């Protein structure tokens, strides 16, 4: 059998008594007391969740516009690309590599059906106009649906009204569909339908969160709390609590050009590029002991002399 190639060299020089168990118990006590004190003094943040109901009630226009964009396919979720929607050529790239597309559509989401049409179909006793609108939508060709919905999205954008008026044939059944959905959402009935689908148990909020993210309601609430992506929001917390300070480097990149400028290639692919950078930096951190130059920094800036000053006071550097 081959002998142990790397004998462990133990320190042969001067030693002293040292009670690591006692050190541990003291540390645990100190941390316990400190945590209890911080908890008692400062509590912890708990901002209640937003609901589709609160969205529809406080930002009806935003809600209706989002619903219309689900129908014409221009909402963020409907035009997302993988992993939700198969859209050729979509997905962020790191250089030539499109990992997003490579991973594929693993969580298929049909925004129009999941957030608008299916919930409206679940309405227990629909009005005749809603039944008629759903029928008209179902009978129309995808092109026709898209035309109606796009025209309506444009009209809503221009009028900033809850319900654009004008030539009814231009919008088809879309105004009826979105305003019915608004009624349903205001009552709170939509929260359950969007989240649950046909399940009894619910642990997956992909649909609810994607739908809510298609309006500006969620983001507006976040920006008000300084949680926006370009506000270093990743390391901020609701209220004035400390956030995820350890994400400072990750969020840092989003604050500076070219990452912050969506007009540049890097900016448009910032999520993927920043992820790539962070993976690379993590790998470098892992390999610090082997990186020439980096591993010598502590020798060039000899803070170790302060850390071990007691030792060096009595033990001059060998060879000096």
């Amino acid at each position: 059998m081959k002998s142990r190639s790397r004998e462990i060299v133990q320190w042969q020089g001067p030693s002293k008594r040292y009670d690591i168990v006692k050190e541990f118990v003291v540390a645990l006590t100190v941390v316990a007391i400190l945590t209890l004190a911080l908890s008692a003094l400062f509590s912890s943040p708990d901002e209640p969740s937003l609901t589709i109901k609160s969205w529809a009630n406080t930002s009806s226009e935003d809600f209706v516009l989002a619903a219309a964009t689900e129908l014409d396919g221009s909402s963020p979720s409907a035009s997302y690309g993988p992993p939700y929607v198969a859209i050729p050529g979509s997905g962020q790239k790191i250089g030539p590599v499109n990992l997003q597309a490579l991973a594929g559509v693993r969580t298929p989401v049909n925004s129009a059906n999941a957030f608008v049409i299916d919930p409206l179909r679940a309405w227990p006793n629909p009005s005749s106009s809603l039944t008629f609108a759903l029928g008209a939508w179902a009978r129309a060709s995808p092109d026709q649906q898209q035309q109606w919905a796009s025209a309506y999205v444009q009209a809503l954008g221009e009028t900033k009204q809850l319900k654009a008026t004008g030539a009814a044939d231009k919008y088809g059944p879309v105004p009826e569909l979105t305003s019915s959905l608004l009624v349903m959402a205001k009552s709170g009935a939509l929260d359950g339908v969007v989240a649950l689908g046909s399940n009894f148990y619910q642990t997956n909020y992909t649909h609810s969160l994607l739908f809510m993210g298609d309006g500006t309601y969620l983001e507006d609430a976040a920006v008000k709390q300084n949680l926006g992506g370009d506000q270093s929001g990743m390391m901020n917390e609701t209220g004035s609590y400390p956030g995820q300070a350890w994400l400072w480097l990750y969020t840092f990149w989003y604050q500076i050009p070219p990452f912050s400028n969506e007009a540049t290639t890097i900016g448009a692919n910032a999520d993927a590029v920043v992820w790539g950078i962070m993976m690379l930096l993590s790998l470098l951190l892992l390999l610090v002991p082997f990186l020439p130059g980096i591993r010598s920094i502590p020798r060039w800036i000899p803070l170790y002399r302060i850390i071990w000053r007691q030792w060096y006071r009595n033990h001059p550097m060998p060879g000096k």
Partner: protein
Amino acid sequence: MSTTKSVGQTPSTLWTARLRNKFFGGLPPERLLPDKQPAYVASWIYVFGVLTIASLLIIIASGVWLSFEGPLWWHTSNVGHFVNSIHFWSVQLFFFSMAIHLWGKFWMSAWRGGRSRTWMTGVLAFLASIGTAFTGYLVQTNFDSQWIASEAKDGLNSVGIGAWFNVLNVGQALLLHVAALPLIVGLITIIHVLQVRRRGVVPPVGFEDSSGDAA
């Protein structure tokens, strides 16, 4: 050859004996729980490793308490909110201690003398802790989780991870947060600390020859 001395050396083809030799050969009791330390172990910086362990234990204890009551309990119960605060603040102390520990070990170039793997398990502990904290933020089931999930999905999707780890699926995040990830952080931490005990604390720069004598 005395029996105690040979523990680490007994040549054997048995898997059991090889595992035992590998483990206890490098970690006899007096190395696992030494009552002496080299004279140079005299600095506040050494406290931050053990403070990190202490914070981790409080995180685990408060986390187990929270899990007994279920993920929504803390929104409606005062006791629950307090236990959540303990969980929250011990996490802050954990990362604070770990960051100082990391920088301390960097400036001590504590990877010298065959300790590079100790550094590497440390980095892995750091990365795994970030993952664990992140899933923790996702399972708060409040506005913060909604927003963090909504934002983070873009980052994860952009590199394909989102196809498997869907941050909008709170059930997935919850199970990872209370099962797999703490297990991983715990195991890495145990390995990390055993690595330190195996080789002993790194000597000051210039004293790597272990004799302790100034030339």
